[in-house]
C-alpha cells in the first residue's frame, strides 16, 4: 500500500494516506476534515466526536473478503429513526476499495458499481419493486432516510455538503444485497453480500470488557 505524506493545512502535522485514492481524511492531531484536490489539501471543517458505539471493528482492523485481504481505513456512521450503523471504508491490497457495513453486528461487504444505477426518482420507490443487476433479481425491501452521525479516517469522497441521505435497500433470495444511494443528483449503486462474522477473519478488532 502506498503511503503519501502531506501536511495538515491547519496544524502542519503530517497526514498520511493508507489508501492512495482517498479524497477525504481527518487530521489525527487537530481533527480538521481535510479534502484532497490533486496536490492541495483543503480544510473543510472539523470532525465531531463519534457517539459511543460497540462495533468490534476499528480503523486498522484487517480482514478478508473472497480471499482478498483488506484494511479498514475509514468509516461513516449513519443515524436513522431506529438507530445507527457503520459503513467501514475498506482498502484492498490491489488498490481497490469497498465498504464493510456493520448494522447491529450484521456484516455485509459491498462495492460501487459505476454507471449501473437505474434512472429512478427516489419518489417513485416502493417496497416490493424488482430490479435486475448482473442477472440477479433484487427486491426493494426498505427505504431509509439517514444522516451522518460522524466519520473518521479516509474516505473515497467528501462528506461535505450532505445533510440527509436516502438509501433504498434491495435483497435477493439469498445473502446478496444492493443499495441505491440517492445522496447525489444521480443515484449510485452498491452491490454486495451479507456474511457471518467468522468469514471476515477480522484481526485487530476491539476487545470487550467481560468477553
Amino acid at each position, binding site marked *: 500500500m502506498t503511503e503519501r505524506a502531506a501536511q495538515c493545512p491547519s496544524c502542519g502535522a503530517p497526514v498520511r494516506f493508507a489508501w492512495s485514492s482517498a479524497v477525504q481524511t481527518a487530521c489525527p492531531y487537530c481533527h480538521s476534515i481535510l479534502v484532497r484536490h490533486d496536490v492541495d489539501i483543503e480544510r473543510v471543517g472539523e470532525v465531531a466526536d463519534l457517539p459511543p458505539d*460497540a462495533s468490534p471493528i476499528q480503523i486498522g482492523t484487517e480482514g478478508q473478503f473472497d480471499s482478498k485481504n483488506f484494511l479498514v481505513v475509514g468509516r461513516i456512521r449513519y443515524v436513522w429513526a*431506529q438507530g445507527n450503523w457503520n459503513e467501514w471504508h475498506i482498502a484492498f491490497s490491489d488498490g481497490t476499495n469497498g465498504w464493510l457495513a456493520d448494522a447491529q453486528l*450484521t456484516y455485509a461487504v459491498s462495492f460501487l458499481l459505476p454507471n449501473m444505477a437505474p434512472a429512478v426518482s427516489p419518489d417513485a420507490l416502493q*417496497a416490493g419493486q424488482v430490479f435486475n443487476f448482473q442477472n440477479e433479481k433484487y427486491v426493494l425491501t426498505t427505504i431509509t432516510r439517514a444522516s451522518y452521525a460522524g466519520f473518521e479516517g479516509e474516505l473515497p469522497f467528501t462528506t461535505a455538503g450532505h445533510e440527509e441521505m436516502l438509501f433504498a435497500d434491495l435483497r435477493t*433470495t*439469498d445473502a*446478496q444485497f444492493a443499495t441505491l444511494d440517492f445522496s447525489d443528483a444521480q443515484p449510485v449503486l452498491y452491490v454486495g453480500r451479507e456474511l457471518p462474522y*467468522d468469514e471476515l477473519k477480522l484481526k485487530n478488532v*476491539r476487545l*470487550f470488557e467481560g468477553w
Partner: protein
Amino acid sequence: MSGPVAEPPVVKGAKPIACPNCGGSVELRGFAHTRTAVCIQCLSLIDTSSPELQILSRFDEKMRVRPVLALGTRGKFGGIAFEVIGFQVRTTWSDGLAYSWHEYLLFNPYEGFRYLTLYNGHWNFVRALPGVPAPASYSGRKAAITGGLTYRHYQHGEATTTFVMGEFPWAVQAGEQVEFDDFIAPPHVLSREASAGEINWSAGEYIAGADVWKAFGLSGEPPRADGVSPNQPSPYPQKVRQLWSDFFKLSLVWLGVLLLFHFISTGKQFLSETLAMTPEAGTAAPAAFTGSFDLKEPESGLTVEVKTSDSDAPALQASLVNRSSSNTERLALVDQGPKSSGWRDLYRSGELRPGTYAVRLEPEPQEAKRAGSYEIKVRREAKGAGWVWFALFFLLIPPVLASRRASSFETQRWSESDYGGGA
C-alpha cells in the same frame, strides 16, 4: 499502518442506569447496542438511546413471567458463547384462546444477536435471515424457498408483546403487534414478521431442551416438551426406513430358507385323472382303479385328493395299491371339503417305498348303485411353505406400525396449523 487507532482498545461495559420511575438499578449487558431496557423492579421500559432515559411504557405486574434462562447467563452454540440479555413473551389469539411463547435474546459482541424461542417445551435457535425468500407454492399451499429448501406455510397470525425483561437493540413497546407467517421444513422454520412498514425474516432450527440445558451448563430438567411442535423433526422417518430395510433383509433370509425347503422337498404331482363309476342298472359299481404312477424314491407320505362336482356321487373308500407287491394300503381320511356343490376328500398315505402304484376307489356299499364322476390327484406337498409365509406376516408388523405412527406424527404436527384437520 498509519493513522492512530481512534477507539480505546477495550470497550468498557455500560454502567447500570437508575430507573427514572423507581430509582432502581438497571444493569446493561449489550454495550452501546441497547436501545430499550426494562427495570426489573417496576417493569418500566426505558429508552437508553438518549441521556434523558425516557420511559416508553410500563408492563403490568400481573403480566410478569419468570424466564427459565436467567438474564446474564451464557450458553455455547456452535462453539460460540452467547449471553441472555433480553426476554419477551409474545401472545397470539386463535379461536378465543391465547397461545404464548417466550423469546430469549442472545448476544455476543462480535457475532451479534440470536434468539431462543420456547413454546410448550419446544425450543428453536433463531437468527435473522439475510435475503428475502422467494414465494412459491407446495401442493396448492403457500411456500417459501431459501437456501435450496422449500418451506411449507404453517400458520398466519398476529402476535402481541405481552411482557419483556432485560434489554433490546431496538425500541420496544408494551403491546406491540406484528403479523407473522411461519413456514416449515423440519427441523427448520422460517418466520416472516411484518409491522409498520418493516418486514423481517428469520430462520430457526429445532433444538432439544436437553441441548439448551447442556449449552448453558444447567442442572435439572428442561421444561417438558408437550405435543408436536411445527418444525420438530419426526423421530420416525429414520426408524421407519430402518424397520423396512430390516424387514426386507429378513425377508430375503426367509426366502432363502423357503427356497432351501423347496429344494429339499418340492411339491410334485404324480397323478391327475378323472374316473367315472357307472354301475349297470340295479347293480353296485365295482371298485375302480386309476392309472398307475411310479415312485422313484421313497416318500414320507403322499396326499390323495378325490373331488366331485356332484353332491349325490357315492361316498368312497380310497386305498393305495402297490402294483409291484400287490400290497394295498387303506388311506386315512384327513380332511373333508364342503358338501354344497360336490365334495372333496383328502387322504394321506404312510411311508411308501419306490415302486408302481395306483389308487383304488370303492363306493360305500349302500351308495354303490349310484353313478359318480371323480377327479383324482396324487401329490407330494411342499413342506414348510405355510409357516414361512406366516412368519413373514409377523415380520411385517413392526414396520407397518412404525409407518402408521410416522403418519400420525405428521397429522399431529399439522393439527395446530392453518391447515389442521378438526377444530
